[in-house]
């Protein structure tokens, strides 16, 4: 039985009632008197010089308040910051001088309604002089390739080869080397809610009020920088419900634009992207990555060393996206005991919309590359795929385990989780089912993936890739306040994009104080009131916000004990706190209850310990565990502190005639340490697996040979629906983290980090009897069927006369 009363118990979440009954308050629900609406004129060209812009007809339309171009924005705002220092790459909300991708914002129209704004946007005439452009990242690196940013002089935004350990020696020692190449197609998280922002310049206080659908570290700081305002002249209201994100809700250009317009026009301005704007130019595409992986291994399956090259097509403006190649450095060997690694990370600009953070910040593609390489080793050696994994797993007694790139994994028991999952899946019976299907002439396959979810995010990838950045602080904070009637309110410093922070903080605070979490109120500060924090990215809030809440609640307990000690005239160490009351260990009858303690704190200064602050409140700002170190010169760094583990087993069947993949069964074993709320963790895993199935089989932001996005709406960007997602069986396991107050680790990316690899493994297993491998995600039916057709043609030829 768990030692906890609320943590880990199946309890209703605090926020679901609000969402399910339609009582959420999203940015689109924020309406201010006299509010205007923005629509955008988008670039139809992948690259073109902007000539004259004729706004007269648009301005003449009744109801139009302003028509703004990039030239005006560039005069009054600073360029948006990048994660890398890139001279000559200037990013503004509206294109300045030239456009660089189809869908780039060129002109913003402000009008009394969104309808009128769209009418007016159609009347804006922009002269374009088309320029040469490049859509393929390999081509973009070739000499003489058209430059996405001519002033930068190159399409190469980042390249570095890291060598950790004796790669050459280990390669020389190994019996075998095997190279594989895989491609992770351009997909993303696609929340139901697009990006939205409302801003209002508060003239009475010289203050910009902002409501936005954001999940973005240092969002107010960036706005202040771009809008040339002091940080305390911006008030971001974090109490707006964010309708989904998993990384993509960055919205800096949207917010700078709307902030500028609100100040210029002295009226509230709102921009809610529509789906078309969102998909084509909302900066919401994820990694688009080619991998070359070579493993050096022995005949018994022991993997000694790995070389990986990852080339990412990051689109036009870098933002934070090149850093998505850096984060996987902290789990570059996955759950395996690989002794040395060479890692070449290459970020390339192309004439496509900009890449943004997506769930896992680059880890899911990397996991897919590693897992595929492991499967290939097994095939090469004729070994069982799980046997190769087990041969190389880091063992439970080896933690903390330092990987070659300098990160310590905190804890884990990979073998145990895999064993449990294999048992739950009845793997032998599953294999028998696969083989029975094969015997009927069908294509059936079983897939595996065993991966890590780094969690508790810090920003260690920033200094790793950008020497000009020496940020090592990645704190999170929480304030707990007991009111004069004994009620407990916790205040958090960030908005929530569906992670259930209210449940998290109430559960942790309730656990510490011994109160039912249902009685604890959790609110969001605005950015001026908030203590410092870094937003709910990087699978960090169970750890960081949970840790901060626990820290603040523990301080409350200490204060209460001090008050009791003073009033009961007993030493603190002879007192015990239990569910709000304090008892004397030596005399159970001597006790002070919560109401009395709170009254003393709030109303009876004469009974307070001398020098103690009146009232009962505490705040706690917590630095990420193991944070605060800079990378070494050879690029070793402690990345995230806590490592969750997941293993997937899936059975799929492929329709020979259509190439369509149907998923029959899915099992996922999961160890994210102590679970705080099982429904939230399981929900993350279900959604994460669905998201991963989407990336593996359905979703792709494909561009055509004219640089046009062909999947610019839900007609062509295919999100899996409930029909495509199988029943999922989750198998829980708990190896507590030694680094966190309750042993919790992250789970915000669970499922997604391994599901694409598992689908690929299963499809390739199904195709293996034919000697076909597919090394590109998403595995569209047409790609699979084409491979089958090619194979038939091949066999026909060889069997022919």
């Amino acid at each position, binding site marked *: 039985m768990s030692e906890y009363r609320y943590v880990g118990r199946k309890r209703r979440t605090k926020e679901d009632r609000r969402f399910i009954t339609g009582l959420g308050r999203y940015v689109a629900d924020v309406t201010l008197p006299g509010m205007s609406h923005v629509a955008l004129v988008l670039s139809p060209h992948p690259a073109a010089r902007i000539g004259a812009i004729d706004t007269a007809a648009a301005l003449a339309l009744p109801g139009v308040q302003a028509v703004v171009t990039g030239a005006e924005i560039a005069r009054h705002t600073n360029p948006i910051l990048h994660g890398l220092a890139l001279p000559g790459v200037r990013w503004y909300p509206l294109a300045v001088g030239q456009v660089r991708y189809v869908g780039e914002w060129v002109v913003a129209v402000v009008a009394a309604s969104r309808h009128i704004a769209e009418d007016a946007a159609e009347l804006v005439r922009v002269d374009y002089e088309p320029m040469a452009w490049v859509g393929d990242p390999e081509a973009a690196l070739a000499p003489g390739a058209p430059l996405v940013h001519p002033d930068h002089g190159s399409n190469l935004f980042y390249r570095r080869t890291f060598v950790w350990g004796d790669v050459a020696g280990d390669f020389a020692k190994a019996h075998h080397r095997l190279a594989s190449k895989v491609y992770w197609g351009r997909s993303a998280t696609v929340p139901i809610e697009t990006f939205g922002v409302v801003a209002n310049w508060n003239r009475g206080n010289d203050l910009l009020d902002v409501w936005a659908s954001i999940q973005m570290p240092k969002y107010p700081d960036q706005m202040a920088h771009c809008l040339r305002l002091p940080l305390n002249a911006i008030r971001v209201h974090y109490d707006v419900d964010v309708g989904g994100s998993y990384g993509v809700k960055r919205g800096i250009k949207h917010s700078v634009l709307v902030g500028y317009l609100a100040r210029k026009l002295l009226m509230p301005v709102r921009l809610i992207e529509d789906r078309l704007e969102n998909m084509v130019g909302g900066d919401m595409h994820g990694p688009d990555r080619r991998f070359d992986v070579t493993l050096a291994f022995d005949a018994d399956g022991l993997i000694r060393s790995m070389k990986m090259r990852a080339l990412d097509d990051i689109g036009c403006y870098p933002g934070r996206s090149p850093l998505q190649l850096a984060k996987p450095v902290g789990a570059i060997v996955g759950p395996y005991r690989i002794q040395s690694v060479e890692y070449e990370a290459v970020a390339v600009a192309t004439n496509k919309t900009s890449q943004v953070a997506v769930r896992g910040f680059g880890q899911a593609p990397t996991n897919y590359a590693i897992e595929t390489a492991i499967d290939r080793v097994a095939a090469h050696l004729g070994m069982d795929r799980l046997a190769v994994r087990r041969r190389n797993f880091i063992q439970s007694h080896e933690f903390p385990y330092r990987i070659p790139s300098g990160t310590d994994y905190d804890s884990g028991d990979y073998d145990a989780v895999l064993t449990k999952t294999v048992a739950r899946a009845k793997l032998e019976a599953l294999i028998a089912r696969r083989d029975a299907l094969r015997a009927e002439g069908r294509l059936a396959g079983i897939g595996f993936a065993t991966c890590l979810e780094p969690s508790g995010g810090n920003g260690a990838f920033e200094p790793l890739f950008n020497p000009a950045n020496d940020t090592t602080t990645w704190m999170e904070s929480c304030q707990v306040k007991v009111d004069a009637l004994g009620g407990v309110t916790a205040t958090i410093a960030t908005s929530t994009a569906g992670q259930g922070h209210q449940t998290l903080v109430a559960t942790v605070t309730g656990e510490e104080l011994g109160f039912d979490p249902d009685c604890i109120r959790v609110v969001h500060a605005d950015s001026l009131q908030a203590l410092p924090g870094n937003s709910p990215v990087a699978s960090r809030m169970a750890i960081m916000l949970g840790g901060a809440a626990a820290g603040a609640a523990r301080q409350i307990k200490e204060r209460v004990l001090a008050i009791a000690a003073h009033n009961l005239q007993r030493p603190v160490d002879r007192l015990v706190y239990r569910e709000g009351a304090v008892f004397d260990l030596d005399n159970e009858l001597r006790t002070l209850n919560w109401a009395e303690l709170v009254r003393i704190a709030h109303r009876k200064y004469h009974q307070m310990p001398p020098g103690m602050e009146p009232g009962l409140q505490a705040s706690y700002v917590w630095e990420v565990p193991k944070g605060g170190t800079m990378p070494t010169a050879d690029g070793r760094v402690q990345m995230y502190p806590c490592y969750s583990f997941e293993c997937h087993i899936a059975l799929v069947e492929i329709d020979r005639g259509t190439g369509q993949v149907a998923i029959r069964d899915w099992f996922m074993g999961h160890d994210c340490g102590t679970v705080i709320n099982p429904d939230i963790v399981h929900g993350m895993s279900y959604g994460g697996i669905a998201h991963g199935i989407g990336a593996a089989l359905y979703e*792709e932001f494909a561009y055509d040979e004219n640089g046009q996005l062909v999947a610019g709406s839900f007609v062509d960007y295919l999100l899996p629906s409930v029909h495509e997602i199988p029943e999922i069986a989750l198998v829980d396991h708990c190896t507590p983290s030694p680094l966190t107050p309750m042993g919790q680790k992250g789970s915000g990316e669970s499922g997604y980090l391994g599901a694409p690899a598992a689908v690929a493994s299963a499809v390739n297993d199904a195709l293996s009897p034919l000697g076909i491998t597919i090394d590109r995600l998403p595995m569209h039916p047409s790609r699979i069927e084409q491979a089958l057709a090619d194979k038939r043609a091949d066999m026909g030829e060889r069997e022919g006369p």
Partner: protein
Amino acid sequence: MKAAEFAYARALSVADAVALLAAAAGEAKLIAGGQTLVPLMAMRLARPALLVDIDGIAELNGIAMVGDTLRIGAGTRQAEIERSGLVGREVRLLALAIGHVGHGQIRNRGTIGGSIAHGDPAAELPLVAVTLGATLLTETSAGAGEISARDFYLGPMTTTLPADALITRIDLPIWRGRVGAGFHEMSPRRGDFALAAAAAQVELDGRGRCRRAVIGVGGAAPTPIACADAARLLEGRTLDDTLIAAAASAAAALTEPASDSHGSAEYRRRLTAVLVARALKDAATMARAVP
């Protein structure tokens, strides 16, 4: 994604609707269930000056059998067709196809007339109408008319229907005897428009040979196509795998598919052969089960 400005009129009868259409001189568009037109208007791909709403017209609703014909009012909801016992008994092909139209929510609003009038080359209902050789009854202010579904489609979303005309009814032939039907499509996800679709209906004689057959293919040409020559191959013969494969490749040869991000032309052509074969197999199996 906001529609351009438009005016709106609710028609109370067919006469009222055609009068409104005539008065608007080509600037009006009918709206029935709105499941196609509303998204097109939101994306400003359609910008009618006037919307004539025919959704509430009672005389456009209903399913009835008259002799060897099943009459379906153009305004009948797809969901009603799906639930109809009459359709299930008498026109099995339609019953098999209708569940592939979008999702339940869409079929709750979408109408058979709207789908047939819109004429998406991948849509199921136009395919069934073309395969079976349905008759479309129309009405203009000048009077009533009719046209065979096989002559109705000119290209993607283009038909011979005049701008001032309304489809009032769809008449589907009922086959009697040892009849079976099959419908197969490949859509990337359930509810999506098909990348290719195949419909087949056969009648067997007492000895199990094919007396008559129709085959239709959708999604693989600018319009749904009836593959008469492929169907003729089957007549008088036993529907075995070899014959079915021959008919399927004859049908596939008639296609002129386009390539897009979901699949190449060759892929769609191969799909067509696979799906036609599956549809024919189902049809033959169903027909054989009839005593």
